[in-house]
């Protein structure tokens, strides 16, 4: 029974993605920006994803242009969109120390939503939300939505709502280039691995009990995935397993490390919203459709991510 549910969900996920892929096709049109990023050979996109791992991507309401719902009205009256963001994910959501502004791929997305709802991409109030407080911030209405490399899972769907997927993700290994790692298993066997506390990577490496499926020599658990890069630079760990998006962010901050091996634990990132705000979710889904169609997604990808994730975003559109 359980497996049936899972399969149904997976099929549904594939359907959503297929639709999404069609939408993304528009990005290659005349409005598509010129690719400026230099293709880096080490930033090979991960293998083609099989089905989605989350499986609840299809639960999201269909896109709608309607703005008559109570939540959308509330935002319009307030005149600003309150978005929960991260300040530490390089090229996704981070505070540029030079300008003091929060920038990145997720931030561009939030600005696109603000532009659609309020007519001005600058009408966004950013609230920093720590990883552990994301669910809480959405549920109690502290923020209208969260754009913060957040993975869509069925478990989370029980408490909050997600938009349609806007990025295909998973988990990847980050290792020093000097280690010459070619596969995930090779990179992890006998290594001192590093993962963030309470992350899905931690669940992959130590799935409970005394099991050690990848044969690591030891697992260092830290509060934030970026702490892993510090430890790797200081030679205290050999490999870091983290979200694909964050793995790319690490590689972007240190040219001597790379993402290596295949991507595992496929998942999708979505914009999180309150479960009751179905009007907002539907509206945001429409924004996402338009965002891909008008080339906004691609432009943002090229600006922030092409350098560390490869010039061709096809793998991340799945």
């Amino acid at each position, binding site marked *: 029974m359980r497996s049936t549910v899972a399969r149904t969900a997976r099929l549904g996920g594939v359907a959503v993605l297929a639709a999404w892929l069609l939408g993304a096709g528009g990005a290659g049109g005349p409005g598509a920006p010129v690719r400026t990023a230099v293709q880096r050979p080490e930033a090979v996109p991960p293998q083609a994803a099989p089905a989605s791992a989350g499986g609840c991507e299809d639960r999201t309401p269909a896109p709608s242009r309607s703005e008559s719902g109570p939540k959308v009205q509330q935002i319009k009256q307030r005149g600003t969109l*309150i978005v*929960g963001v*991260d*300040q*530490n*994910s*390089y090229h996704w959501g*981070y*505070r*540029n*120390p*030079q300008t*003091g502004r929060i920038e990145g791929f997720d931030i561009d997305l939030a600005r696109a939503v603000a532009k659609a709802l309020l007519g001005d991409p600058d009408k966004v*109030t*950013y*609230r*920093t*939300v*720590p*990883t*552990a*407080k994301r669910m809480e911030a959405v549920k109690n209405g502290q*923020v209208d939505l969260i754009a913060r490399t957040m993975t869509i899972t069925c478990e989370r769907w029980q408490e909050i709502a997600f938009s349609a997927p806007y990025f295909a993700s998973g988990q990847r290994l980050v290792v020093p280039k000097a280690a010459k790692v070619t596969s995930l298993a090779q990179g992890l066997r006998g290594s001192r691995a590093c993962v963030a506390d309470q992350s899905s990577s931690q669940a992959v490496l130590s799935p409970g009990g005394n099991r050690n499926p990848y044969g690591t020599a030891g697992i260092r658990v830290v*509060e*934030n995935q*970026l*702490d892993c*890069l*510090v*430890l790797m630079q*200081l030679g205290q760990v050999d490999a870091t397993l983290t979200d694909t998006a964050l793995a790319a962010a690490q590689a972007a*901050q*240190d040219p001597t490390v790379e993402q290596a091996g295949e991507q595992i634990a496929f998942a999708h990132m979505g914009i999180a919203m309150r479960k009751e705000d179905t009007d907002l979710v539907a509206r945001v889904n429409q924004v996402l459709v338009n965002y891909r169609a008008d080339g906004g997604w691609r432009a943002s990808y090229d600006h922030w991510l092409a350098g560390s994730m490869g010039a061709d975003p096809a793998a991340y559109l799945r």
Partner: protein
Amino acid sequence: MAAPAQTARAAPGPVVAPVPGPAAAPVPPVVRRAMAWPRRATRTAPARLRTAAVLLTALVLAFGALTAWQAAARARAAGQVVSHSQPLSQNAAEIYRSLADADATAASAFLLAGDAPQAVRDRYHGDLDTAARLLAEAAARAGSSSEAQQWVATLNRQLPQYAGLVETAGADDRQGLPLGGAYLRYASGRMQDTMLPAAQHLAAVEAGRLDGDYRAADSFPWAALALGLLTLVVLVRCQVLLLRRTNRVFNPGLLGASAAVLAALAWLTAGSLSARSGLADSRANGAVPLRTLDQARIEALQSHTAENLDLVARGASGTYTRQWSALTASLAGPPAADGVNGGGRSGGTLARARSGAPGEAAAALAEAQTLFAAWDDRHRTAARSNEQGDYDAALHATVGGTDASAESAFTALDQQLARAATAEQAAFTHSAKGTDGVLDAVAAGSAVLAVLAAAGVLRGLGRRLAEYR
């Protein structure tokens, strides 16, 4: 000349008779002579006088020697307190403080990035310089204590690593990499988990040594006092006996000896009491309140570090909010349950430091308590902004260059704590200085008086002895 002849005659005599029991084993001649000595020494009046003269002289000189030795040992310990263990203990506390200050300042400088004023950079580098200098001094002076050396070595090893991590954090931040913040948090973690505990241990070792020197310096010289009283009693008894035998009321020699012993006793008692009271004052107004004050300074600095790192973490960690709560609760007491504004805190290290502090230090600490309330308020305002996601407002309210920032309230608080520390150090020096001189004078004086007393004994009994010739 006469003695050996006498011995030779006495030895085979019937003196051996009192040997009890059936064991008729032959007693060695040496033992027999020794056992016979008391009778021999008191058989005749001149012999008794001679014996008394020898015993009294020995007693008086022993008293003098014991007094000089005990007083000198206490003088040495008192000198050690003033010139060695208290400065070393305060140096260790200063190493601890400099490191905590460097950690807080590094976080401030990081938050201000390119806007960091020269004063902030200077303060950070000054802290590292002070710590390095004092560590070198501690390494040179710690001498015998291998425990202290071990902590000094740990700190010497860690200090350059810490500085390197802080530099890397700054360099990454200048390139716009969030990694910089992670580096700074890692550096601070090193400081909090390894270096500050090592510095705390070093301070505890030095504080223990100071306590030991205090104990040695202010233990009362009971042995010398007891021997002095015994000497005095024997001298008086001797004079009473002489009075009965000779009907001469005064023996100037013995009288002088008694006066000298009495004077030495009085000097010893007065000197010891005065030194003890000076040391007790230096401890009560200096060393002990300084210890509480040092703790308050460290807690204030660590609170400031936690406050800054919470902003450095930019929501990546909830550790620092918890640290702030725990540290400030220890520093100024837990906030009242309903304390929305002002916190309604009471108790804590600050209050303890104030209650034990002398005059000016207490005033400075009262001021510090007021400043803490302001700091606490401003911190709460900044934290509220941060919670609401207004990072820039939080940053400005925390380290912004205005007088209304949490940083400026902290700085003012730290200055008052420094003022209190100066006052308590002065109180220590004022009370403790000179105690070793007082005790040294007792040692020298009692030696001279004992020699005079011995001369008096010999002269007084010599007169009587001469009457038998």
